[in-house]
């Protein structure tokens, strides 16, 4: 199974709309070039929840060891990193079961 960058962006946007930490009553404005931290939509802990959620949806781990944090705060950049890991795993034949992420918060409406 492959997932496109656009599908991934839609997943991120959907997740943020449900779980954002922003203030106010207005509708959440989020685009692919939105910086999730600078905009105040997510705090750093919520960003982790989002990354773990993406791991469950792409079925592979996102390796942030050498990534500058500036690079995974913007929606499309985060999706590119996730997609890169996703493709690498597929190429390596490591398409395994869902990573063990027992406490992903509010990953889906029924949680």
């Amino acid at each position, binding site marked *: 199974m492959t997932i496109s960058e656009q599908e991934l962006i839609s997943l991120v946007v959907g997740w943020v709309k449900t779980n954002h930490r*922003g*203030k106010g009553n207005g509708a959440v404005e989020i685009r692919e070039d939105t910086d999730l931290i600078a905009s105040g939509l997510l705090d*750093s802990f919520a*960003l982790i929840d989002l990354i773990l959620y993406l791991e469950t949806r792409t079925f592979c781990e996102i390796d942030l*060891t*050498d990534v500058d944090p500036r690079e995974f705060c913007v929606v499309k950049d985060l999706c590119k990193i996730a997609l890169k890991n996703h493709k690498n795993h597929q190429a390596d034949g490591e398409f395994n079961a869902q990573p063990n992420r027992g406490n992903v918060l509010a990953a889906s409406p029924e949680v």
Partner: protein
Amino acid sequence: MAKDTQYRSLIQGFLESAQRFPARPALVVNDQSFTYEELRGRAARIAAAILLQEEQPFPLAAVLAQRSIAAYSGILGILSAGKGYVPLNPKFPVERTRRMLQLSGCKVLIVGSEALDHLPALLSDVDQTLTVILPDGDDSGALAADFPRHRFVVSHQMQARGDSSPLPEVRPGATAYLLFTSGSTGIPKGVPISQANVRSYVQYTCDRYQVHERDRFSQMFDLTFDLSVHDMFVCWERGACLYSVPERSVMAPAKFIRDHQLTMWFSVPSVPAALTKMRLLQPGSFPSLRYSLFCGEPLTALHAGLWQEAAANSVLENLYGPTETTIAISQYRWDRQRSPEECLNGIVPIGSVFEGQQARVVDADGRAVACGEAGELCLSGTQVSSGYLNNPEKTREQFVQLPGTGTTTWYRTGDLVKQDASGCLLYLGRIDHQVKIHGNRVELQEIEAALRQVSSAQQAIAIAWPVNNGSADGIVAFLSGLQRVDEQSVLEGCRTLLPSYMVPKRICLIDDWPLNANGKIDRKKLQEMLQGRQV
């Protein structure tokens, strides 16, 4: 001269370091470095601007800013002016900030450029007339036109005080800073910490960790969190450099620690937990650290062990202390061999209180329990605050005298602990409805009050969920008396009243509340329902 006027105030440590090490870096924030002399100069200009407002003496001034040069120089400027500081958080809803500002009675407000967006809403609703100091601002024309009852001071109107100007007299009992904690009535509680309280902490901690001018401190905490006081003033007391960690690096600080070769780490245990989830806590990751300190919520043996391997050259300590007892008041030093066996339920002990402070574990009548028995932890000593701001009733409840201890005032922490034969304190949990979320102290009743306000629910119950090793990741709310609920609308309403960490992640409707043997709503049962996904 009265003896107490010779007291060494909190700001003096910074000023002495600025004299000894004027050219050394004092602060790195947003990729910019400031020497002690530069930071002192900025603080002096803010202090002069504050003192010019002093037609009548006032004890406190507020700073609305977030880990920026304006924030740090604002705090130093307020203290240099002989006042106590009240940190306000631009991440909080304006309504909450307005309430804190009014409760504090501050008439001077320093605002960083990062908080300017919040200013119009705040200024239009606040009761008192304010002098707003904008250290980053060049022009206040639009604000002055829109809010004529407030005064504005921008950077070019701020004059430096002469270096020879004497420091205003500051007494040991004067408030050094005023913080607000979550209040069970729905109104945040003000906790004033005196100069003597915080001086006691800074002196003890600097000596314990042998802090020196070559140290490099992390600064992770929001300034509304009292652990930030440790970062700033333990660091500046000895001429070290403070590294403000950008929000985006908080969950992935490994690169930041390496890039800046930090030597002193201080964070909530949620950080190693997050790093572990992301597989970023690897052995040998942080060789530059010589101390790793954790505080604010239970530290698990698992994360202590993993961090110790990652920061193998550092001494790791678990600190404990409510805001009312000034930053931290007890410590436990992790030992690779011995400590895993000393943990209780996988939680690292909170250890023993600092020299000069006292702990007592008591039963419901305030009498000391036997060694090994569970009881409420009560604390006294030079670090313990004298009570809550303008709240004598709550002060009487929490600051008490205990049988057999004379006139000593003890702070009842609400924390359930037991003491082992060696005197080591072990944390068991809370005796009330207070929870910690990523280290932030939260009264569930405050969330429930907000939920009732923004929905037409007859009853609202907030449950910390999920809870892992004594620390909560978030809140789930239960509402009754409604046929249906617009979840997003309720959550949006909560966001206007509560800081983000207090906003529920989810709303559940319930018709019949589970009740315990006393006829009260059974919160444990609600947790079990969440566990079993029955809602």
